[in-house]
């Protein structure tokens, strides 16, 4: 655990996606792992993620997408963050991001090109993800200092 107040992160399932089970698990897990979680639930728009991150001064936005339309829903997300003054926020995305069986490396490259800092497949070790998230947040803080 790091000293000081917990890092704040915003969590939600993007687009017209109602899958709530994974979202509930992520909320409980990251809260237990010492993060301050702002969970927006399901069917969240890009602007709602950004609104919540602005008010809560979140260091990262974790976007879930389970229904295969992640590419369309996430298009332009980084640009929107920049436009709204959140250019430096960490963007994570994970889930069943695209329809069909495409190699994960391809999916990861696509979403990184869209401005996401980390891309996760459906099955992921959450402890490892939390460690990455903490390291990324602290690195970003150092870079700003």
């Amino acid at each position, binding site marked *: 655990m790091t000293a000081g107040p917990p890092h704040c992160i915003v969590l939600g399932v993007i687009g017209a996606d*109602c899958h709530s089970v994974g979202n509930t698990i992520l909320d409980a897990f990251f809260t237990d792992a010492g993060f301050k979680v702002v969970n927006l639930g399901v069917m969240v728009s890009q602007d*709602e993620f950004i609104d919540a991150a602005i*008010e*809560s001064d979140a260091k990262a936005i974790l976007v879930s997408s389970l229904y295969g339309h992640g590419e369309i829903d996430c298009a332009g997300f980084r640009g929107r963050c920049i436009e709204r003054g959140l250019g430096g926020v960490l963007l994570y995305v994970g889930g069943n991001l695209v329809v069909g069986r495409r190699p994960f490396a391809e999916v990861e490259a696509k979403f990184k090109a869209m401005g996401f800092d980390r891309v996760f497949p459906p099955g992921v070790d959450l402890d490892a993800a939390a460690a990455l998230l903490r390291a990324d947040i602290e690195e970003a803080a150092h870079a700003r200092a």
Partner: protein
Amino acid sequence: MPAPRWAVCVDIGSTFTKGAVFGFEGGVGRLVARAEAPTTTEDLARGFETVRKEVAARARAREPGFSPGEAAVRFSSSSRGGLRIAAIGIVPDLTLSVARLAAASAGGKVVKSFAYTLTAADVAALEALDPDIVLLTGGTDGGDEKHNLANAAALAGARITSTILYAGNRAARDAVVEILAARNCIAADNVMPEVGVVRVEPAREAIRRVFLRRIVEGKGLAALAAALGTDPKPTPLAVYEMVRALSEECPEWRDVCVLDIGGATTDCYSAVEPFRGEPGVVLHGIREPRLTRTVEGDCGLRVSAEALWESGRALIERELAAAPPEEAAAFAAHIARVTERPAQAPASAEESRFDAIMARACAALALKRHAGAMRAVYTAGGKAWVQRGKDLRGVTRAIGTGGYLARNAEDDFLARALAALAPEPEERFLFPEAPVLYADRDHVVPLIGSLAAEWPREAAQLLAARLRPVAEGVERERDRRP
């Protein structure tokens, strides 16, 4: 604390000062006498005394046992058009929207809102308005501080006499108060401590205290408050407390809304579960409290008639379309006339008919802005609905109050106003579904309201007994039709 044997209640409105004597026997209340007189704007105490004496004389005539010395005196005031508040938040859909909610529920009128960081032009606009209160919010607790610090610095240099109420991120509170040390600055708990969580009570209480200081200054109210040993309430706060008491104390009035159609504003109050949580419906944005008030400054029958003609034009023109063409010109003339002479009651059948059209437009617009809506979203799992704002479908009873409705207690304005709001296929407005409309025939809602915080049960039961459903009038009207 048991209810007093007698209560004298006075409401100082912008046009009329109204008074009533209520009697309480074993906790059961009754209206003993009612009186009103024009408001004396240069010295409010004069109109107050006229009404108090008149209503006491009438009470004595009716009940010789009435003794003014034994009566509790409570009063409210909406003079000066209420408290003018400028709201500042960060994100329009989050803290700014909650700030507006807090201002309205305290009985204030939001004259301007600002999102994100104040610009030089925003500060100039604030200086021109010089509102009674600047409500500065922003950030969840532990969240964003930089917008608040920048806005505090901008306010520190602004040429305004306003009280600045800080109700944002508590982590920035000390710094904001320090930046504004040379100004009249007070602080209250954050109105949105977590994203989507609304907590307006502490800010509301702070606004009420500022109201007392501001409203009591001058115009004779300070001396009056000192002589009576009781402070005035903002009239909308008295009504707000009335709605709370009614909803909490009388089970059949649990889910209620009140439409107060006045000369300058239309106020809508509701006490109802804001989100039902039905399957397939997701709530987005803030979850509003059970009890809320909204106030529409462009919906009024007199002072705001011109503004209503603008905002409600589509609704009004639809009603006029059914009438002969000369009716539209006559309506425009009516708007000009009532704007010029706001104290005048309608003098002809035509004027009454026009007032009725305006009242329906006020009700429709105020409800549309008070109520939330659901939008259809097509998901992989089928159709789902996203709700924003407050669900009023659970409202079973509605109360119409205000001078117009006291004169036209048989006007079932609500059913017609709701019918005028055509549904849209992919959007559902969350209006009350077939509520029973009750008329405040004696215009006692604000008067009993001034007792509601201290004696909620007695006040609620007294009001419930005074209200009559309008449906009987509707049936009579239906019978009259050819």
